């Protein structure tokens, strides 16, 4: 136990050590997070009226980002499946990074729910009268916290074993890994059920929402992982096998194609039927009665997703630049599609046919940016302390002496120093 506390303390100390770039990055994230905190305090004092939300569009940027982040968290499974189901041992350690990202993503998702509450001071009512299993929101609370626990356990255990220089006991994490794979899908399913179980919102009341969420998450999640792994490869001595990028790229190709396929199915059903229920989709894609608020967004998203997909299919995406560009496009595309494209149009028009457009205010955009910055901060710290452990630089039996020139966070000097313990 004492060992473990010491480990946590050393990790804490380590998160304050780094290069100039690391400090600048951490400062920037902290500053944005503080701006977000400041904006949230204003919302706490004056009420949700400081957001762009209305009775007509009662969910906005927060829930949109919540949906996106749940997807990102589930995308950790895209690394776990090749490793544990297809026995791709080479990528074993990379699973840890995927799961660390899942941890950060769930923290962001939970924060987005909390800032969306009108009465955060009554959060404990959840514990006292938990409307389970009727309310899908209670399912969501369970699925997210369960997933957070699973990921914390799996990567925490593996990292700690590495720190103690002992072989992890398969019994202690393999079952959890498999539970986590199923759980990842179920978080997406529950997230989709949150929306598609509402008969009063025809735009959501569609069985294809769940597969669409899974497909788009499995495209955007690996894209973020590619970027994160590239950053790790460029800025640390940790050696990321080329195969990781190839695997992730293949996953994105398939997932993005599925996502596009499902989008087409959805659009065809809506527009060919041309029933009264098409109004929301019409508002999203073409505008309704002189209101065009979401039209530029959704077409940008579709353009980005398609361009990203085509780029990734072309061999040119083996090069770092095009690959990063394609991944960024897909992340932004999916972010728009899930946020502006999935959550908001369901409220336009209202069930009584009124059309009120939603425009996020500066304040809620700052809160959103703050949460994302905080999530990235958490992810950076987790990665920062994990790398020296995985490289065997930080173990229980010797002091960690980060020489600036050979620090795992410094510029890569000699690949020979980068040898993992596994």
């Amino acid at each position, binding site marked *: 136990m004492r060992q473990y506390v010491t480990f946590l303390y050393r990790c804490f100390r380590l998160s304050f050590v780094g290069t*100039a770039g690391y*400090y600048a990055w951490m*400062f920037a994230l902290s500053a944005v997070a503080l*701006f977000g905190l400041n904006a949230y305090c204003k919302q706490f004092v004056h009420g949700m009226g*400081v957001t762009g939300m209305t009775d007509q569009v009662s969910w906005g940027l927060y829930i949109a980002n919540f949906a996106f982040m749940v997807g990102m968290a589930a995308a950790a499974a895209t690394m776990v499946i090749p490793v544990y189901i297809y026995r791709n041992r080479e990528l074993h350690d990379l699973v840890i990074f995927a799961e660390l990202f899942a941890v950060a993503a769930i923290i962001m998702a939970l924060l987005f729910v909390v800032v969306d509450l009108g009465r955060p001071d009554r959060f404990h009512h959840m514990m006292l009268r938990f409307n389970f299993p009727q309310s899908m929101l209670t399912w969501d609370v369970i699925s997210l916290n369960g997933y957070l626990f699973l990921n914390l356990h799996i990567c925490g255990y593996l990292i700690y074993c590495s720190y103690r220089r002992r072989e992890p006991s398969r019994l202690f994490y393999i079952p959890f890994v498999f539970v986590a794979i199923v759980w990842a899908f179920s978080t997406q399913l529950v997230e989709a059920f949150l929306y598609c179980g509402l008969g009063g919102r025809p735009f959501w009341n569609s069985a294809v929402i769940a597969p669409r969420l899974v497909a788009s998450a499995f495209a955007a999640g690996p894209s973020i992982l590619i970027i994160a792994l590239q950053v790790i490869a460029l800025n640390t001595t940790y050696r990321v096998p080329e195969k990781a990028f190839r695997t992730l790229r293949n996953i994105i190709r398939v997932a993005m194609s599925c996502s596009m396929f499902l989008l087409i199915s959805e659009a065809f059903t809506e527009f060919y039927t041309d029933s009264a229920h098409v109004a929301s989709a019409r508002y999203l894609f073409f505008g309704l009665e002189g209101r065009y608020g979401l039209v530029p967004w959704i077409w940008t998203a579709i353009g980005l997703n398609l361009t990203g997909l085509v780029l990734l299919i072309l061999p040119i995406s083996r090069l770092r630049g095009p690959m990063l560009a394609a991944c960024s496009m897909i992340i932004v595309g999916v972010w728009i599609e899930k946020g502006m494209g999935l959550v908001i149009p369901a409220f336009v028009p209202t069930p009584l046919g009124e059309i*009120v457009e939603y425009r996020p205010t*500066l304040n809620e955009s700052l809160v959103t940016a703050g949460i994302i910055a905080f999530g990235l901060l958490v992810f950076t710290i987790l990665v920062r302390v994990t790398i020296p452990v995985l490289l065997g630089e930080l173990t229980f039996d010797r002091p960690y002496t980060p020489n*600036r020139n050979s620090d795992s966070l410094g*510029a890569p000097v000699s690949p020979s120093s980068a040898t993992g313990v596994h």
Partner: protein
Amino acid sequence: MMPSRLRTETVLWAIGPLFALVAVWLFFFSPKAEIPLGVSRPVAHSDILRGAWRTPLMDARESIVDGIKRPCSECHRLFAPSQAENRTLMQHKEIVLRHGINARCLNCHDGADRDKLVLHNGALVGFDQAPLLCSQCHGTVFRDWQHGVHGKTMGSWDAASGAQRRLACNECHDPHSPAYRPMAPLAGPGTLRMGDQTPHESHAGRRSPLRQWSHGSPAHGDADPSGTSDEDKEDEP
């Protein structure tokens, strides 16, 4: 280019002051969070009074002429009754008789006893028994009214408690021109951030077979699509 170590030192030195800058900005210059409450258009208390919509004459003795309350018969014994349709009145000029084919005063008012109303069978009833008179022509509406389906009940919803008062026909309708008068609507909704709500052309209207009157332009606003016939209006209140 600075050596990496020196660069790190510089960044580290900069963090404190930069945080201080952030603090100063957040404390002094952080913009106030605006909530556009909108312009609330209050309504006058007199616009939402509850109860009967009219105060009709319930008793012939309530008739006010020249500021003095007196029974109808007091003046009318001086004048001979007239059977003319829609005649021009010398007195009671505020009365406009627009009651379909029911266009004679003495269809409802008794010619001999001006303090009473007269039924078709010649029976006299008081001003407070108007529904009996109306029921002679408006039978189905009267039946609805008896069951509380037509008209308005004040008091309690609970019939068993008995504390109910069903408003009489003439507490809502002017017997001389019973059709409901149009009125000015109260203020429309002005909710938070609802944006511009000037109506736009509806996309669905263009193909609708009902388009010529479902999105009525002023051109056919007052047109009567089915033609007016008094028979149609027999059941009208």
